[in-house]
């Protein structure tokens, strides 16, 4: 039996589409209900929806053998797992954005609002800039507009939301997309099956 953790939401639906196109179908999985676990006995596979941020936890602790997680979440949590494939779905970027009239004053500590404190910290440590991290749980665009922060570190897809709030990207951090991850121990013993799944997903 292969257990698969999929992230609830848009990215997860895109990834599930890849699975169903590869012949791994779980009837009823896209219905809007409360059911979270779906099994396909014929395939010997079980799928479950979890919060996107939790996918690496399920995989690292072996409850799921494999899972699909956004690179943003992998960078933030750095789980001890194998990252076996780029699923090439949900492309976007991690970037620094600020108000269009923002001018960086290197003499001051930069106030950074983000949902990804580790990514922000790593990025600014890498360029040797001292920052004050403000961790928020969404609506990041508000932070620089209202003066809570100087910049934000956030996921940018099309940039429309940024533009609507008079913000623009000032630094690029990383390319993001959905990745297929696997529990290290599970991969030792179910590696052939997992590799077969990856091969079919890539076709």
């Amino acid at each position: 039996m292969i257990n698969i953790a999929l992230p609830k939401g848009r990215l997860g639906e895109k990834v599930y589409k890849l699975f169903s196109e590869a012949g791994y179908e779980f009837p009823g999985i896209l219905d809007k209900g409360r059911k979270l676990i779906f099994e396909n006995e014929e395939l010997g596979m079980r799928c479950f929806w979890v919060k996107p941020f939790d996918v690496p936890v399920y995989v690292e602790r072996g409850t799921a053998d494999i899972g699909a997680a956004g690179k943003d979440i992998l960078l933030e949590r750095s789980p001890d797992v194998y990252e076996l494939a780029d699923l090439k779905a949900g492309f976007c970027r991690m970037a620094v954005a600020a108000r269009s009239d923002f001018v960086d004053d290197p003499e001051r500590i930069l106030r950074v609002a983000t949902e990804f404190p580790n990514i922000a910290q790593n990025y600014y440590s890498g360029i040797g800039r001292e920052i004050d991290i403000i961790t928020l749980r969404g609506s990041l665009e508000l932070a620089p507009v209202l003066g809570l922060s100087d910049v934000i570190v956030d996921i940018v897809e099309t940039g429309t939301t940024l533009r609507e709030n008079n913000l623009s990207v000032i630094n690029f951090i990383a390319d993001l997309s959905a990745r297929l991850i696997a529990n290290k121990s599970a991969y030792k013993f179910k590696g052939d099956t997992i590799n077969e799944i990856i091969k079919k997903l890539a076709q």
Partner: protein
Amino acid sequence: MLNLRLRPEEKAALNLRALYEDYHYKYYRMSRFEEYDFYADKKDFLTSKRILTFTDTNGRLMALRPDVTLSIIKHSRVFDGIQKFYYDEKVYRVPKNANNFQEISQSGIECIGNLTLENLREVVELAILSLKTIAGEHKYILDIADAGIIAEILRGSENKQEILKCLAEKNIHELQNMNAPEEIISLAEGEEKISSTKYNTFYFLDEILEGLKKYHDVIRVDYSVVNNLNYYNGIVFRGFIEGIPESVLSGGQYDTMMRLMGRKDAKAIGFAVYLDEIGRL
């Protein structure tokens, strides 16, 4: 006769002791405390950088031992021969993703001195037999790699840490994105050797495995086990048991660490077995 029902991890620890005694390793009993200073400059060697400290009756800052290997090196004698130790101890660490200190049961062996190929082979064999002892009827596997080759390929490389991280993740797509050396990519893809003649000088791993053919179905060359090039210089390995989500055994040859501790000519190899998870089997 005592009529005791032992917990699986206790039973495993005793079985391992019997195994190591069979191979003439000597039991090494040590204090749970070391002076904090001892660890201060070796934090990279420790899996968790946080150390539980307290002040002793003389006002010295002490640490509850986060690691056994360093203490064994420190207390081992300096001489030409070979010293073989085994231990069955508790260590105090903040495990990854945990919020507080935990007491962790650890058994293991260290083989220190003027090591020969036979010694290295014996330690790898003992790693396999340790896995066999605790796995019962479950499947087990020992992943092994040559950290020396990786160090040689990555010498002078700017993004060494990123490359090592991707290698540990079998992250081939990112390795390609960052233009990692071809040899690293092919090892990450599962090649057991690199074909380039540039590095063809030192195939120690081959020689070690040559003498361990009878275990070929439980040994796998897998370069995702290479992580820390600052201390490990020769072979490194990691053991897994089906049903336990993380590795239960981890070790390697750490001559570089010996040198850092002032033991210039000594070689050393060892491994630790983590027993707390085996109750899940």
